[in-house]
């Protein structure tokens, strides 16, 4: 069983052996502009362990074939690898059935799929779509597009200045007119963990369907779609130490069965004649064309790697890093921390009144430190906060306190240059 904790990655006292873990991420051992690389852009994409790179290579070296149709050994091996990842994902998010796991290109495609299929058949003029104030554009634009087509109305769940959704507003925003609630589980800009279980219950109470954007949640939190009672849950492999170009859309079987297909083509059909066609069963109905087989196969290695450490251990260590970083950041003169929710993951945004975020990022890069700056694809949130952008540091389990020291020193260096 590959899901077992790998004791090799731990010290004798049960703490994580970060030095050993970092050996699995060779990309971290490089210099940028003559300084050791400090990679704090994990919320944009995480680095990939050797196990993932090796799985990808092994697939192309040994098993490459098109899946599901071929009656030959390589096709069977490739299919087995592809479907093994589906089983791993099912376990990873505790889905009820493997057929509820649809492979996509990423979170964005998952949300677009639901908007285009469920949305187009279930929404009409005057219906309401409820989103939160902190949505990524990926969970906003597809619904705006749908609203424009159907004349449905988009409503926004408000938040406080710390970046916490106002749960007391749920009942006034979510009404019998609400047909869909789609909310981000963890904010990419603020790090806030949203009370999605409560939100989903509110949606269900008025007969609405609930979709969760889990892009930022899956690498930090234990995800149990049945416990959350989510109708749809979308995430990306590349934010979970897996390859780019692979995403997962979870949907409850009854909903997926009732939805029309998203795209037409090979794989998703049962029978085709010149006049008509019948569609394949789940999950293939939503997987038209040859999928990204190699990256899906390699994605399993990422899930196994995360299991080999364990999410609670990852979360505890990442919190230690966040607390350490925040303790250093808040002492810097003129800084303002953005995103101070009580319940959050290892992401910290901040701004200076007198230093532009782009300027800061340029100097930090010179010092080997990779952070993300700008609006983080959350322009409505920036408007709500009265900002044009922030600087954001996001930490993963392979990061260290020494790296945070280098990051803080680089900020002081930038301040010296700018002030």
């Amino acid at each position, binding site marked *: 069983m590959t899901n077992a904790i790998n004791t090799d990655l731990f010290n004798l006292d049960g703490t994580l052996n970060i030095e050993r873990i970092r050996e699995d991420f060779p990309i971290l051992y490089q210099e940028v*502009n003559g300084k050791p690389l400090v990679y704090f852009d994990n919320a944009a994409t995480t680095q990939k362990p050797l196990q993932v790179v090796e799985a990808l290579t092994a697939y192309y070296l040994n098993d490459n074939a098109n899946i599901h149709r071929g009656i030959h050994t390589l096709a069977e091996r490739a299919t087995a690898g592809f479907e093994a990842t589906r089983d791993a994902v099912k376990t990873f998010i505790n889905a009820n059935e493997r057929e509820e796991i649809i492979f996509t290109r990423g979170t964005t495609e998952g949300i677009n799929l639901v908007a285009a299929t469920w949305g187009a058949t279930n929404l009409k003029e005057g219906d309401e779509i409820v989103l939160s104030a902190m949505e990524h554009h990926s969970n906003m634009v597809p619904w705006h597009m749908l609203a424009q087509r159907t004349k449905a109305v988009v409503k926004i769940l408000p938040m406080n200045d710390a970046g916490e959704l106002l749960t007391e507003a749920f009942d006034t925003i979510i009404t019998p007119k609400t047909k869909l609630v789609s909310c981000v589980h963890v904010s990419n800009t603020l790090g806030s963990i949203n009370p999605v279980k409560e939100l989903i219950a509110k949606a269900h109470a008025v007969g609405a369907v609930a979709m969760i954007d889990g892009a930022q949640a899956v690498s930090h939190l234990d995800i149990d779609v049945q416990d959350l009672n989510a109708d749809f849950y979308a995430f990306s492999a590349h934010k979970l130490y897996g390859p780019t170009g692979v995403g997962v859309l979870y949907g409850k079987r009854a909903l997926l069965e009732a939805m029309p297909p998203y795209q037409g083509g090979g794989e998703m059909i049962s029978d085709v004649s010149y006049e008509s066609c019948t569609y394949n069963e789940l999950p293939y109905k939503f997987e038209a064309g040859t999928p990204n087989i190699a990256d899906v196969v390699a994605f399993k290695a990422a899930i196994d790697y995360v299991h080999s450490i364990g999410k609670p251990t990852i979360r505890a260590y990442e919190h230690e890093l966040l607390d350490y970083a925040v303790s250093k950041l808040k002492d810097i003169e003129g800084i303002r921390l953005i995103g101070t929710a009580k319940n959050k993951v290892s992401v910290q945004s901040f701004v200076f009144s007198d*230093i*532009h*975020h*782009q*300027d800061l*990022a*340029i*100097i930090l890069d*010179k010092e080997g430190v990779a952070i993300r*700056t*700008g609006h983080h694809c959350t322009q409505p949130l920036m408007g709500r906060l009265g900002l*044009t*952008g922030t600087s954001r540091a996001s930490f993963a389990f392979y990061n260290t306190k020494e790296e945070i020291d280098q990051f803080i020193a680089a900020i002081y*260096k930038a301040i010296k*240059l*700018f002030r």
Partner: protein
Amino acid sequence: MATINEIQDQIIDDFNLFDEWDEKYAYIIDLGKKLQGIDPKYKIEENIIKGCQSLVWMTSNYQDGIVHYQGESDAIIVKGLVALLLKVLSDQPAEDIAKSDMYFIDKIGMQQHLSMTRSNGLASMVKQMKMHALAYQSTQA
């Protein structure tokens, strides 16, 4: 009046005096702080070169075959780079601007700011300035 290439060569000589990257950036930041900036009445949508991270405003006027530029940015390093471009291209004949080659950017080690992921990188600023010059040239012809 020095030619575009004479000014470029002077800037390259100036930057050769710096040993460390932070000295270069301190100089650029200083240029940015000193740049007078753009007349507020020109800070309008059509003069914006929009980027993912910061804003650049660029405007120009034309007199007797010479193009005068004004530029600004809300980020200070970009503003310093704008100052360098103005130093090289402003108050030059439209014809010379249109056919100029901005080789100094590479020579002073600022090539990373040419495009990067930014649509308002130096490359698009130079392009915009050349377009202005070309437009003035065509009115002249």
